Every structure is written in C-alpha cells, then in structure tokens.
C-alpha cells in the first residue's frame, strides 16, 4: 500500500517534471524531450489496457494544458503508447509478465530488454508527436533528424526515471 502511494506520488512528480521541461527547458527546434512514454510504461501491469489508455490520455492532457503547447498533442501521442504497452511487455519480457502482473525492472529483466521497451515506447510517442507538431509543413529530413535526436535525449532521461519508478517491490 505504501509502495502504491509512493508510486502515485512519484508519478505525479514526474508529470510535474514533464510540465517544467515543456515550459522552461528550451533545447532547440531539433529536440523535443518527453518522459511521458516511460511513465506509461512504468504504470502497474495489472491495470487493464482501457484504464491505462485513459490514464495516458489524462496525463497527456494535463501536460498539454499546463505547458505551453497545442492542446491535444501529448494526448494524441501518449494514448498509442498505452495501447501497445502490454503487447511490448509481452513481446520483450514474456507473456507471463502481463498475465501475472509482475513488475519489470532493470535488475530482474536486464538492461537491454528494458532499453528496448523504452525505445519502442519513446519511438511511438516521438514519431506521432513530431509528425503532428509539424502538421505536414516540415520536410521529411527535418522530421527524421528531430526524431533521432529527441529519441536519444528522451532515452537518456528515461533510464534513471525508469529505475526510480519501476522498483522490484512493486
């Protein structure tokens, strides 16, 4: 119970961090840093997909509203991450993980597998976010470069965050 309370608190703090990143950390046109995908990935595995999508949508909306940006953009990108989360976990960590709702961590599941899961979630999020943000007005090369740089930056930020949120006890 204590762990769940801690997780909720940490989740809310991470959302606040994301809002602060959006509002105050301007790292240029070619970079868009987001930790929302890893937040969705770290949500407990016993949450049904439908509820997971609603949580992702509400989190995305909260970031959209409280950060300087277009309302709907983070929500649009976060919901697909929630939709594929269980499939990604089953694919990389085995179906037992989702069936038994066991938590995932770097120590138990290995750095490479966790990295792969983060990269898949970040890729889905970044691709949708960058394409929708550009709205067909930016060249494909720009999208590609921005996607690659954003993925790298978000991945670097996501690893320690994943370590904090996905504890072995949960």
């Amino acid at each position: 119970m204590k762990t769940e309370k801690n997780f909720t608190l940490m989740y809310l703090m991470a959302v606040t961090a994301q809002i602060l990143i959006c509002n105050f950390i301007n790292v240029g046109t070619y970079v868009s840093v987001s930790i929302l995908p890893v937040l969705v990935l770290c949500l407990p595995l016993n949450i049904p997909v439908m509820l997971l999508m609603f949580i992702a949508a509400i989190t995305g909306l909260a970031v959209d509203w409280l950060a300087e940006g277009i309302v709907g953009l983070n929500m649009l990108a976060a919901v697909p991450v929630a939709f594929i989360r269980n499939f990604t976990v089953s694919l990389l960590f085995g179906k037992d993980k989702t069936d038994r709702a066991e938590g995932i961590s770097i120590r138990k599941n290995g750095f490479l597998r966790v990295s792969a899961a983060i990269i898949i979630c970040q890729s889905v999020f970044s691709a949708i976010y960058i394409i929708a943000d550009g709205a067909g007005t930016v060249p494909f090369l720009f999208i590609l470069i921005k996607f690659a740089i954003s993925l790298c930056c978000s991945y670097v930020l996501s690893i320690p965050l994943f370590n904090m949120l996905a504890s072995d006890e949960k």
Partner: protein
Amino acid sequence: MSGKRNIFRICVNAAVFILLEVAALVMLSHNGQMQNIWISKGIHAFHAFFWGGAENIRDYFSLKKQNAALAEENFRLSQTIRAYRELTGREMDGDSIPETTGGYRYIHADAVKISNNRMHNYLILDKGSEDGVEELSGVITSNGIVGIIDAVGKRYSYARSFKNSGMVVSARIGKEGPTGEIMWDGISSNGAVLREIPHHIAVQPGDTVYTSGFSSIFPPDIPLGVTGESTVVNGSTFNVKVTLFTDFSSIRYVTIVHNTDNGEIKELEGRDED
C-alpha cells in the same frame, strides 16, 4: 469462451483507443491552425478514398440496370436509323458519320463522381481539354439535360449539375409550344419548375417539355420531362411543375455537347453589350 472474451476485449480496447485519438485530434484541430488544416486535408483525403470506393461498388451493382437502359436506347436508335433509311433510301457507313451534327459537336464521357444531395450539385467527367472538351458545353443523356461544363482540366472536366439552385435552361412545352425557363425545384430528385409561361396559354398535364434551343449551350428538342400541375404567378404567368426524365442517382454515361458557333454568338453578344 475465453477466446471470445479476448476478442471482445480487444474490440472494446480498439474502440476506446480510436475514440481517445479522435478526441485528441479534435482538440488539436481546435487549438492549432496548422494542425487544423493538416487534419482537414487528411479527412478530405480519407473521404475521397472512401467515397470513390463506395461509388465503384455502387457502379458495379448497377451494371445490370445500366446495361438494360443502354440496350433499350440502342434499340430505339436502331429503329430511328431504320426509319430514316426507309424515308431517304440511303445507306450510311460508320466512317462517314460526322463528328459535328447540326452545329453541335458530341463527345461521349463517363461520370466519375456525382454529388446529388446538396443545393449546389456537380459532376466530374473523365474527358478534358485533351479530348476537345470546352467550357460552357452542355452535358446531356438520352433522357434530358444533366448540367453545364464549368471548368476543364487536361483529362477531367467539372460540370455544374442541373440540380443546382442557380441553374436555368430555356425550355418549351411540346415541339412548338410556349417557351419559358426551367430550373430544379430544389426539393425532389426529379422535380423541376417551368416558369414564365404566358397566362393565356392553357397547359395540359402530361405534355412533354423539350429544350428550346435558345440557350446556345443545348441543342433544341431534347426531351426533359412531363408537365404536372400549374399555378398562376402574379396573375400574369404560369409556373408549371415538371417531372424530369433524368434519374440523377443512376447517371453513369453522358454526352458532352458543344455549340461550334458558341464563340461567334458570344462575340456578337459582347458587341451588343458594348
């Protein structure tokens, strides 16, 4: 049982996913101008793809009806040719059929897209400037007029449908009866109103209405429909209800008709205005 429940759960999840994404797209289009244009373009592309597919399916299932109508028209034309041959005693081979008849040039075309449910309907035809189509040409079928070519591309042309609230065509009751202007009634698919018929002329329900030939776009004597009830307007003219022969919902093949003297007529009209 478990498998069925799984499929049901996947369907519900997919539905919720689509719902949330649509909600996000709606919010996005309301909050970003660029995103609004982008999403609108996407919706139009999807609509065109879906609409085109539906049209192809509709065409496929109406082939039997279209074939029957074409066979009937073919028979009627053959009978007409036989009657003329009897009258004139002359044979005509296929090569000697002229492209232009009676000052009008005829081009066969397929309607690739038709709108029918708006106040301003239109058609897209598969013939363009490369095929000799010109602006202000008429579009007809054997059952009457369909529209007027408004814009011409290389391979396609855009025609304003007769079912357009602003379109008026000169028409006549019978082959030698009074002349007025006919326009779509804006309500039914095959209803029209013939206006400006002088009050002193009795109009019988069931008379055939033809094009008068005064418009320089449509040749004379194309049957348009049959007259119905008539009402007196301002005590001086009749408005006559007309039931059109053309079934706009099943148009597939049309004929583009262009008055070859149209340029000269327009020039004279322009000189008169000056």
